[in-house]
């Protein structure tokens, strides 16, 4: 069934590219934001050696997170629309396995995240030389690992909501919550205890921790705990979805 999985992924990629607004919103805008904020800082009259240091947060990590959350929102919306239109049901009536039907969308989202991250790293090297991480590859891998875990939460959302309209609203709302609690803007340690618990239950928080560490050049071995947390959330979300996901 690998052939079917790859064929479906390839077609879904082409379909995604045919919808210009989706591409702009989830790929182009975050990278543009990154480039313009980066440039604005760099061209400031006072001049700074490390433009990243002027912001209370790392704009590259924020951008990576926005790309990743854009992928999740898009996934939730697609699942709801496909369910409403009977597309999932129709695919389910073929010999293609359920894992392949949904896995194709994960592959597509990861592929576009990869492309967006590569564009961001390359643009960053031009606009912000010296401010980018030593290993762009490691950083991208960290982003992809984080995104996979966040996508699994997307399937939980897709399992819970019925209508496409509600799915998009819920996806957006949860995105803001995850963004606020992720630790990109504020340190999670300063949250009240209960909010720390909430933040730690969300994959975004661990994704940011991982990205930040890899950005700073930390070796992968030091991040096993964080990756374990991401894997645990992934497992729980997939387990939940495989029980509650509705095909129609």
């Amino acid at each position, binding site marked *: *069934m690998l052939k079917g999985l790859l*064929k479906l992924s390839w*077609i879904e990629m082409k379909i995604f590219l045919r*919808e210009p607004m989706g591409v702009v919103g989830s790929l182009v805008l975050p990278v543009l934001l990154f480039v313009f904020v980066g440039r604005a800082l760099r061209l400031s009259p006072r001049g700074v050696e490390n433009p990243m240091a002027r912001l209370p947060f790392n704009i590259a990590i924020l951008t990576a997170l926005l790309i990743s959350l854009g992928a999740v929102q898009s996934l939730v919306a697609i699942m709801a629309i496909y369910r409403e*239109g009977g*597309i999932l*049901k*129709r695919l*389910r009536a073929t010999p293609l396995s359920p894992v392949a039907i949904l896995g194709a969308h994960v592959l597509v989202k990861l592929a576009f995240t990869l492309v967006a991250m590569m564009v961001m790293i390359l643009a960053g090297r031009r606009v912000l030389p010296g401010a980018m991480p030593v290993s762009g590859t490691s950083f991208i891998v960290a982003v992809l690992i984080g995104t996979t875990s966040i996508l699994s939460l997307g399937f939980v959302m897709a399992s819970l909501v019925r209508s496409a309209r509600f799915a998009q609203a819920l996806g957006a709302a949860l995105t803001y919550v995850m963004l606020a609690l992720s630790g990109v803007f504020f340190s999670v340690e300063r949250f009240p205890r209960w909010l720390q618990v909430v933040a730690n239950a969300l994959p975004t928080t661990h994704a940011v921790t991982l990205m930040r560490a890899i950005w700073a050049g930390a070796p992968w071995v030091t991040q096993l705990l964080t990756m374990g947390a991401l894997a645990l959330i992934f497992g729980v979300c997939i387990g939940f979805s495989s029980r509650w996901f509705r095909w129609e």
Partner: protein
Amino acid sequence: MTAVSVQSGTDAGYICTMPLPVVTVRALSKRYGRTVAIADVSLDVYEGEIFGLIGPNGAGKTTTMECIQGSRRTDGGSITVLGLDPRRDATALRRRIGVQHQEAQLQKRIKVWEALDLWASLYDRQRVVDSDLLLERLGLAAKRDARFMNLSGGQKQRLFIALALVHQPELVFLDELTTGLDPQARRAIWELVRDIRARGSTVFLTTHLMEEAERLCDRVAIIEHGRVIEMGTPLELVARHCPQRRVFYSTDEEGGERLHELRGEGDDFVTDVIHRIAQDGARVRGFRTEVPTLEDVFLKLTGHAIRD
């Protein structure tokens, strides 16, 4: 001396012409919460026929069909499809059946050829037909590069038929295939369904259109409130429940035109009337017969019209 005894075979010359059942359903039941969707449905579908499950919306047609396809869990009874248990052997069954769902959609921006290409990749390569020939056969060749969202209702349905036929399935399920189509598109689709049968597949369809059932189906089962209330060929059902025929004709008489109306039963009734008119030597101006249809059968059996 050698005695030769020759024994002629007793049953050797007997050839069973009865077609094989492709679908066997016995005492099938299904509830949604407290609502009984289908109760005690039993039916057989034979190889090479177009079988129609007919009844009003909400009667349980789609639920029955989906239980047979294995995409819905049943609450009771047994189902065998192509010798398989649709739930237990779901994947094996999906390789051998073709499916079209009611009011289904595809990805808005998928192109016709991409959809066929994808579906073709999901089945055994030996069984998959050439998709360009298939598009030709379904009158979609000119739409090969069109996006799904730009197809008309009839074209969408023809594409769904194409997807259901891409792997030459032994059994094809068509759920409310022509609902929402104009009469011309509907007739074109009927031709395609007859063509599926001509190529050796069995067709299981649902419809709430009595004309469609009458024109298309070899056998029908009428379903009402989740129960099969009657089964047979359309002609059998009409003969069994509405045998009455009516003949209207007008003749030239001295005082002008005279109208006649005759009622009777049986297949010979109309012929008898014609003979009688011929014997009388009357000059006939107009002649019309009224033969009951499945619609009348449905009305008689349920007490209401199917569109209610």
